[in-house]
């Protein structure tokens, strides 16, 4: 019975019910038929009564009436006429008795009928006597016979008729009683048989329903256990007796078994991809840390550069002032030829100071160039790291896409599983939300990386400007150094030929103008360099900010991950994480 399919079981149940009701129907038809037979018997009795009234009872009474009329008739003609009518009725009565079917009668009825006929024969003789007397004129004799002997015989004949009819009524009543008792028996039997059928069909239905709901109950229990804890391998053992069952329930159980296997595989895949994402996040965090330290280093070196450049600017300003003083003095020397000697000595001193200042600025500029080159190297390393991070972000993006596809497929499977997949639909939605979150995160990181690359490019460009400016300044410095040396030589000559000062004064003034021009150039270049370094410093600050932002983002992501691992959103997910 267990291996029968549900529809076959239900068909059996219906067949049993139909067979039982067909038997009931046949029983009812048979009983109706016998009751119909009794009814026809009663019907024939009624017809007999009608016939006996028409053929026997009515003519008998008419004969009696006519005989009395003959006795009482005043003239002969009327008596003749009435006699004819009386004879006709008598013939009719005889024919009725003769033609009465005696075949179907019972013994008692036959005896009663014979007695009635004998009584009629006796009455006929007496009546004939009365008529004979009356027609022959002996009216008194006829009258006496009619009201005495004939009247008694008539009453006795009527009595026999009543007896015969009573027998018929008794027989009909017997038939009625038999039909009544049969009807009671049929009602009782029907009630008992109906009760028995209801009990039988109910019992069979109960057994069939139990055989269908039993395995489904096992399935429900297993599904509930798996919904609570997906790694509950003991839950599947409860399913084993149902798995071998044939029919629709067995198919349902096997389908459920397959769904649970697919669910497990999907969750394992998800767990693996999560682990991979965690690894990548850790390496990203390390790279971000490195990026931050490089930014800080760059900022420090840029600050040093700025300090050096400021020093240089100061020195250049000093030189410029000095040169202006020299120029003024030279002009004075041209005017006051007599004080040339003294002035030349002073000028020589000032020229030496100018030479020293130029050498100082030369050293400072070299320092600036060196630092800028170092910074440039650091920036290059930074760009390389940013590119490496970009590659990692690409991988993370790819994994997020895969997770998304996986989650959508899981949701589709859950939808196909209908009721059983409701829990899993929620989990698939969470997985999809997580994939979406990581995709947004990678987009943010990518944007920041683009900003870093752009800022780094700007910094390198401004550093190149600085290098060019510094090289120009060094070249100019060389020129001014030469000019100062030349001045020193010229001043030496001036000291020797102080008498010829007025001649060389013009030359000196010219040289001073040259120095002044050179110094202005140096000043200009130094200012350019300062501006460029300030630009670098700003770029470095931006870089530092970005590094801090990245660190913050990474820490936030880590914290979010830690918090999502902390709370248990669903038993399935927590089981997957524990893995």
């Amino acid at each position, binding site marked *: 019975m267990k291996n029968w399919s549900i529809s076959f079981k239900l068909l059996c149940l219906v067949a049993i019910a139909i067979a039982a009701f067909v038997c009931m129907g046949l029983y009812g038809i048979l009983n109706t038929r016998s009751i119909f037979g009794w009814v026809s018997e009663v019907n024939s009795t009624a017809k007999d009564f009608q016939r006996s009234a028409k053929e026997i009872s009515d003519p008998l009474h008419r004969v009696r009436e006519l005989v009395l009329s003959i006795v009482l008739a005043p003239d002969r003609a009327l008596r003749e006429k009435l006699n004819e009518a009386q004879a006709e009725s008598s013939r009719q009565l005889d024919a009725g008795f003769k033609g009465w079917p005696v075949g179907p009668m019972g013994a008692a009825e036959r005896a009663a009928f014979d007695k009635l006929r004998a009584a009629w024969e006796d009455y006929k003789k007496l009546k004939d006597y009365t008529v004979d007397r009356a027609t022959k004129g002996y009216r008194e004799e006829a009258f006496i016979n009619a009201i005495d002997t004939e009247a008694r015989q008539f009453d006795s004949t009527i009595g026999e008729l009543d007896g015969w009819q009573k027998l018929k009524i008794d027989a009909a009543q017997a038939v009625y009683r038999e039909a009544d008792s049969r009807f009671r028996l049929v009602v009782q039997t029907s009630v008992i048989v109906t009760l028995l059928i209801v009990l039988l069909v109910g019992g069979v239905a109960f057994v069939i329903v139990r055989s269908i709901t039993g395995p489904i109950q096992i399935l429900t229990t297993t599904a509930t256990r798996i919904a609570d804890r997906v790694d509950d391998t003991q839950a599947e053992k409860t399913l084993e007796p149902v798995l071998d069952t044939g029919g629709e329930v067995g198919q349902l159980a096997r389908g459920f078994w397959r769904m649970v296997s697919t669910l497990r595989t999907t969750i394992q895949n998800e767990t693996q991809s999560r682990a991979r994402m965690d690894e990548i996040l850790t390496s990203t965090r390390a790279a971000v840390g490195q990026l931050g330290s490089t930014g800080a280093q760059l900022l420090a070196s840029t600050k040093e550069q700025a300090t050096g450049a400021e020093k240089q600017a100061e020195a250049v300003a000093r030189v410029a002032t000095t040169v202006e003083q020299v120029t003024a003095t030279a002009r004075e020397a041209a005017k006051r030829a007599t004080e040339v000697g003294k002035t030349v000595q002073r000028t020589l001193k000032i020229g030496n100071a100018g030479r020293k200042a130029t050498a100082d600025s030369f050293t400072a500029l070299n320092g600036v160039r060196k630092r800028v080159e170092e910074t440039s190297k650091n920036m290059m390393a930074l760009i390389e790291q940013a590119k490496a991070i970009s590659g990692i972000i690409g991988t993370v993006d790819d994994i997020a*896409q*895969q997770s*998304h*596809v996986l989650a*959508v*497929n899981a*949701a*589709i499977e859950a*939808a*196909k599983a*209908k009721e059983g997949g409701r829990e899993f*639909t929620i989990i*698939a*939605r969470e997985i*999809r939300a997580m994939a979406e979150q990581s995709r947004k995160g990678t987009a943010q990181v990518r944007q920041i990386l683009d900003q870093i690359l752009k800022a780094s490019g700007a910094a390198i460009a401004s550093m190149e400007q600085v290098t060019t400016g510094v090289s120009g300044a060094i070249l100019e410095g060389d020129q001014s150094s030469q000019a100062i040396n030349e001045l020193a030589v010229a001043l030496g000559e001036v000291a020797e030929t102080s008498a010829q000062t007025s001649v060389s004064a013009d030359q000196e003034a010219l040289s001073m103008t040259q120095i002044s021009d050179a110094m202005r150039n140096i000043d200009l270049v130094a200012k350019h360099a300062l501006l460029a370094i300030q630009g670098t410093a700003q770029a470095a600050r931006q870089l530092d900010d970005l590094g801090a932002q990245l660190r913050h983002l990474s820490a936030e992501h880590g914290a979010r991950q830690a918090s999502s691992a902390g709370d248990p959103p669903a038993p399935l997910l927590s089981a997957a994480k524990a893995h």
Partner: protein
Amino acid sequence: MITNDNTASTLILFELDGFLFALDALKVRRLVRAGEITPLPGLPAGVLGVVSVAGEVVPVFDLRERLRMPPRAVRSSDHFIIVRCDARLVALVVDNVTDVVPAAEAGFISAAEVLPGLASVEGWVKVNGELIMIYDLEKFLSMDELLSLEKAVRA
């Protein structure tokens, strides 16, 4: 692409050039990321070629041509939705699958209520306040095309 008796329990929402469309999740076999499409001779218009999905050769339909959208080559960021249509699998190229929602959350508006006679439109659903058009998949990919497709794939 909801079934006629409107029994879809879950809808898959996908994107094409910024437009949202819906599909009955029960008709979807699975979602895969776009891979290389093998061209075949004698394919009807709108069929880009075939792909292999779990060992089965599946024709790839270009929904852009169906919906008269500007044509675009398949990108690696695209997805294939593998659906069952008249007892065979076909792949539909979409930009992305944005969501999987229960149909009960999406208010369904039958096309017959709005504009009777739209053969291939089944109706609309409202998701997050946005109206999304639903196409009847069987009517959308007509029988003639499926037959000629059958020949081309078998050849």
